[in-house]
């Protein structure tokens, strides 16, 4: 499985990486722009990410925006159904507006509010059918 983690905070990023690395290859991005570049490149190489973890509060391009752009690209290229990337928002923001924007406008697969631990993340992955 190919995983992308977009998170500007070192500790959160490392934590996610350590939890997820057992599942497959983990790439990391420090901000939204980097995340978009990584996503684009993987897509061009025809090896898209299976799972993308996005923080919302990131420099340059925030997670909501990344989510929207990814979904736009998928739409453009006619990628849909089970071929869509599974996106999990991992963020400290827990206000209704952010949650519903991500879930409904951005159609993300899951929304996790920090702090995130292994159990929480694994439960969610299991629900999405991603855990081996």
């Amino acid at each position, binding site marked *: 499985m190919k995983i992308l983690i977009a998170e500007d905070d070192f500790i959160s990023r490392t934590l996610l990486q350590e939890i997820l690395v057992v599942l497959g290859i983990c790439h990391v991005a420090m901000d939204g722009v980097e995340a978009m570049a990584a996503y684009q490149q993987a897509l061009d190489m025809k090896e898209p990410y299976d799972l993308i973890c996005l923080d919302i509060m990131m420099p340059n391009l925030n997670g909501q925006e990344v989510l929207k752009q990814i979904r736009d690209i998928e739409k453009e290229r006619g990628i849909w159904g089970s071929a869509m990337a599974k996106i999990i928002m991992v963020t400290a923001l827990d206000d209704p507006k952010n949650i519903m924007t991500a*879930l409904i406008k951005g159609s993300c697969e899951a929304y996790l509010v920090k702090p995130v631990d292994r159990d929480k993340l694994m439960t969610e992955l299991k629900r999405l059918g991603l855990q081996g």
Partner: protein
Amino acid sequence: MDEQLSNEQIEIIQEFIQECSELLDNLEPKLVGFAEFTQGGVFSLNDEASQVLQEVFRLFHSVKGSAGFLNFSHMASTAHAAENLLDQIRKGALGMSNEHVDLFCKTCDFMRETLDYAASYMNDAGMAEQAGELALELNEALKAGQEEMLPTVPVGQPATPPPAVAKAPSAVVKEPVLPDMDLAVTTEMLEAFLQESTELLQEVEQGLVAWSNEAGNKEIVAELFRKIHSFKGNCGFLGFRDLERLSHRMETVLDVAKAGACPAKVKPADSLLNLCDVLKITLADITKQGNSAIDGLELYLELLDDLIPAGWGSQLNLASTAPLLGEILLDHGVITEDSLNAALSVQQKPLGEILVDMGAVSTDEVDKALEHQQQKRGEAALVHEAKVSEPTALPKRQDLRVDLEKIDTLINLIGEMVIAENMLIHSPDLQGREMESFSKAAQQMSKIVKELQEVAMSIRMIPVSGLFNRMTRLVHDLSRKSGKKVDFVLVGTETEVDKIVIEKITDPLVHLIRNSMDHGLETPDERLAAGKNETGVLRLVASHEVGEVWIRIDDDGRGLNREKILNKAVERGVVQGDGAELTDKELAALIFIPGFSTADKITDVSGRGVGMDVVKQNLNQINGKIDIDSKPGQGTLVILRIPLTMAIIDGMLIRVGNVRYIIPILTIREAFRPAAKAITVSPDGQELVNVRDRLYPVLRLHRLHKIEPAGENLTAGILILLENQGRNVCLFVDEILGQQQTVIKGLSEYIGKIGQVRCVSGCTILGNGDVCLILDVGGLTEIELESV
């Protein structure tokens, strides 16, 4: 999952409902668009269709994700099943048929219903059955497709699988594994319920009053029905069974009335009004001690049953749609119209029995006809049920409820800012300097601060319509009780006043209106005898006048009884002599004396003599004034004058000795330096000053507050003529220092209690940081009265 829902969770769910409804609004036209592709039977994937399919998939996907997040498991599993089906179609494993479109549309309907359900219960637990059936259908379709590759269902064949399948083992159905969000009643919810319900009942009450005046208006009834219905829903949700039962029965009565099947002789509005009171009292009980039981509930229910015609049965309007027994018998040619009419004229017991008694028909024939009627009713019931199941759209909230405390804090802070601004601009450090750009900036800041202050005050302002409408009910009841006819006119209901003002004038208004109804307006006979219209007019008018809100209560009744009031006043020793020299205004002031009542007998409406005293006290608390004007035989006009703002006033800064005071500018009539010849001293030592041929008492502030004045000589200082409730006094001060915006701060309680400081209503902080007292002009004018 949490046992309780926090406010945040509720907010999230509300957000979800709103977003999701929009989503469904988008989804539906797309689904219908599908029907075009499937017109010619099974549809094969082409570019255009594929795009639509994509859209639909995305939307279902979003619903699945967000419903899953909220643990709306039924909704999520249904969306998931729909998504699976779409994915199969995408992969080409399945063709798209009309049947599928129907199924997706059905899924949409289900989701809308679930959203409606969630809006009131905050979960989707109640939709389990429907979700199960739907998921089953979706999975069936999926399986069918996988087995046959292409379904060959022709267009138009019902998509629903046979009911037997629906009861199949739930292995196929993706049963929700997550626990449902359980909802316990929190204090906040209870508070919200009480507030909302009280408002709702308020509206119901108005509606009922309107209905009783305009019996034929179906719209009002429909509106009432909706309101009682949501009230019932709220009660049921929070488990107040008694309230639910009673409101349910009220709803039924309204339903009867809506269908026009109400017995003509009864006026349900009045009974319902009484029951509205019962509901309100129960709500109050809940607030006080959490007791939601209604005493005598059965009695109320029976009372309402009288309003519901027999045969209404399970609240379905069957009787009016099914033909009447007599008509059926007539149709069948069993009886003639004559015998039917004869039977109807004696109709006390069931018509069938009478006809049998009359020998017009046989028992068998009646039974047959009755059977026929039952059947027709059954059909009607089905139709009715179909109508009932239509989802009802919930109105969207548009306003924002804010804790009053927050607003008060904001206003306090702005008050502090006004003081800080004064301190800054009048800082002693800046004295005597020329600073052009600073003064410019200061001016700009003053302007903004002033605007900010106005905006902040306006947040607290609410229209008086709610208060006024409550009075409608009062007048309605009073007029029923006393048999007086009255036309109650409301003017200026949109006028906005401070929330505190509304609270404080509610009681006074009730008293004043009672007075008008009880003492003022005459009975129809008396009115006719006096040559007036039989129906009296009571007007309640709200308006903005310079810096004040005026509430006028105006009736065209008999006016104040001068003689009676004078007799009573003399009797009580309030007025010396025969009081013949008193003006109308002074006379009116007498009725504000505690315990003063002219009523011959105490009624349950008024006459205890506490009313006007309370009116005055309440108004004093908000610095309001009362003017009364009355013309015998023509009516009485009472004006409540309330200052617009109570937090910040325009004040006049004065000095006595080395102490400074603020006088509210609105109470100042004029300020002048008296000529020596204008001053006279009465035999008992009271100093009086002559202003344009009227004598006013002089009050020396330095004596009242025991201050060392700059001078004792009246002609050396300044006299300020103050007015309150028609009474005047001239205040002697040393100097007027200027005018300024004054932020009122309360005095600490112990200062007020010990009573060392007389005639002070509060304090403020001056620009240089000094504390300065605000004079209570009402108190000052009363001191003068005491000493007379």
